[in-house]
């Protein structure tokens, strides 16, 4: 059987196969999907209840704490999923399955990375939609079509940014134990040092500085804006200590961070995959 010459279709074929494998794994072991949905919903209930008796208008511009929390939880769900995206690759490395991929005449070994991006992005979208729907049922509103566009564009940028870091870690760290340990260490501190749970005005100055350079904040604020009845990308979304940032500023910063991280991991991926 003679193999055909390389064509652009091959990149699609191999990326499709690699992504399909990840979804078959998810279908047969759906616990990560459910845990990823269940955890933020529990947070929504518990944190929402925690502040249910707080004075009205204690948070500027929102009716209830649940309204404020929703955006943070959507971002946290996507962030956690993307942070874990290096794990399947790490297991493939450890168990030798990656060698099966590397011996194959892939038209581009970036299809291995591309499939992880696709898988995590789709998974985050599904999880986010479920969370948004449940938030809606709890009376916390639902974004309009333009708002939905902002939510998904922001999530794509965040997922690309965090997935690229996680894949990089999957190649750099010696094994999955170290990767899981690192995920544990950085996951919650990044959430608490962002504007997911409280606005910057509630924070001490030092934490306000950290929160205003935290990439999660740059994703949370546009999604919070997306829930507004009148969406204006040029309204101030974040009162950072270094100056006010609009929703457009936040998305632009997230975009720059994503492009920078993708460019930064390229040499490492080239070295490891070629």
């Amino acid at each position, binding site marked *: *059987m003679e*193999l*055909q010459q390389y064509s652009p279709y*091959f990149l699609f*074929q*191999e990326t*499709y*196969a690699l992504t*399909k*494998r990840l979804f*078959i*794994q998810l279908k*047969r*072991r759906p616990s990560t999907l459910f845990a990823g949905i269940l955890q933020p919903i529990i947070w929504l209930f518990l944190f929402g209840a925690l502040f249910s008796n707080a004075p009205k208008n204690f948070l500027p511009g929102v009716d209830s704490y649940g309204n404020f929390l929703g955006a943070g939880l959507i971002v946290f769900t996507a962030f956690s999923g993307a942070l874990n995206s290096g794990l399947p690759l790490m297991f493939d*490395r*450890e*168990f*030798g*399955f*990656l*060698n*099966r*991929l*590397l*011996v*194959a*005449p*892939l*038209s581009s070994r970036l299809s291995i990375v591309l499939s992880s991006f696709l898988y995590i992005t789709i998974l985050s979208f599904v999880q986010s939609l479920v969370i948004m729907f449940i938030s809606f049922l709890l009376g916390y509103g639902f974004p309009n079509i333009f708002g939905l566009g902002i939510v998904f564009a922001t999530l794509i940028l965040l997922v690309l940014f965090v997935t690229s870091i996680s894949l990089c870690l999957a*190649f750099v760290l*010696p094994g999955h134990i170290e990767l899981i340990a690192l995920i544990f260490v950085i996951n919650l501190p990044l959430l608490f040092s962002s504007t997911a749970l409280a606005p910057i005005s509630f924070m001490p100055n030092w934490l306000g500085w950290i929160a205003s350079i935290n990439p999660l904040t740059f994703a949370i604020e546009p999604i919070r804006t997306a829930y507004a009845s009148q969406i204006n990308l040029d309204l101030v979304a974040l009162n950072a200590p270094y100056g006010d940032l609009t929703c457009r500023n936040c998305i632009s910063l997230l975009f720059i961070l994503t492009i920078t991280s993708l460019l930064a991991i390229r040499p490492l991926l080239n070295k*490891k*995959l070629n």
Partner: protein
Amino acid sequence: MNYIQIKNLSKSYPNVSALNNLNITIEKGNLFGILGPNGAGKTTLLKILSTLIAPDSGEVYLNKIDLIKKPREIRKLIGYVAQEIALDKILTGRELLDFQADLYHMEKSKKIERIEFLINQLDMIDWIDKQCGTYSGGMKRRIDLAAGLLHIPKVLILDEPTVGLDIESRNIIWELLESLKRDGMTIILSSHYLDEIDKLADNVVIIDGGKVIDQGTPFNLKSKLGGERISLKVQEFSNYEESEKLKEILLKIDGISQIVVNKSQGYSINFVADKGKDFLSKLKVELAFCKFEIFSLTQSQPSLDDVYLQATGKTLQDAEIMMAGKRDLKKESKQSMR
């Protein structure tokens, strides 16, 4: 015709020289055996041939294509079956083959046809739709082999494919390799099973410590030793001092040569006796003079183990025991991870 040429190939890991200036040529359509104990450098050589790792120096050509400069061209031509069977235990066997076929960019109709053919050829129909995590060692090896053969490679590279397998699976794999050889496929098979290489290989290279010890057809390698292989024991389990005394006795007898102590067989003495010469009566006299009695004396045709023993002064079994103490498998596993 030299289909695969390996020239001055060297590869080192920290503190270990895995391959040391290796030169090997492999003809098209041959089943080429690589024999050596664990840690001899077989897996490193096969990983270089399958483009998984790059050598430190040297050249490799497959069908005149430079393997180091054009690895992607090489990948189209080879099928690789690794020593460690790496399957996705969540996928079924059929899904795994389908996945693998897509990585080789096979057309849908050809893919389905080829998968069905291999399922029948390797007798996998009863369990192909079960998840790989439920498979026995033999089943895993068969599906792994099928994955390596999906795209009908020009060269099939197999790293110890029958280690730890039951007899049925081993026979199925042997029959398959013989049929692939008849079809003209070039096969590179590493093993530390002497009988496997002796039965299947057209040509064999024996490597130890990353160096080529000898190469040729199994028949020629064995014939080169000449004479009759004799194994002598004066008691069931002897010791070093006794074996040294016996060596001295044997050296005095005309027609006896290539005397080696085989430690793994209780310090038995292996030697070659010239054909047609009566060494036995003289041996009996000399042994009696030194108050030894013959416990056992066996005669056999030379085997590949004798070739290895003659070249290195140790049996393959001895070499493996020695290497087992020296190897750090955890470290090697980390080194093999990308």
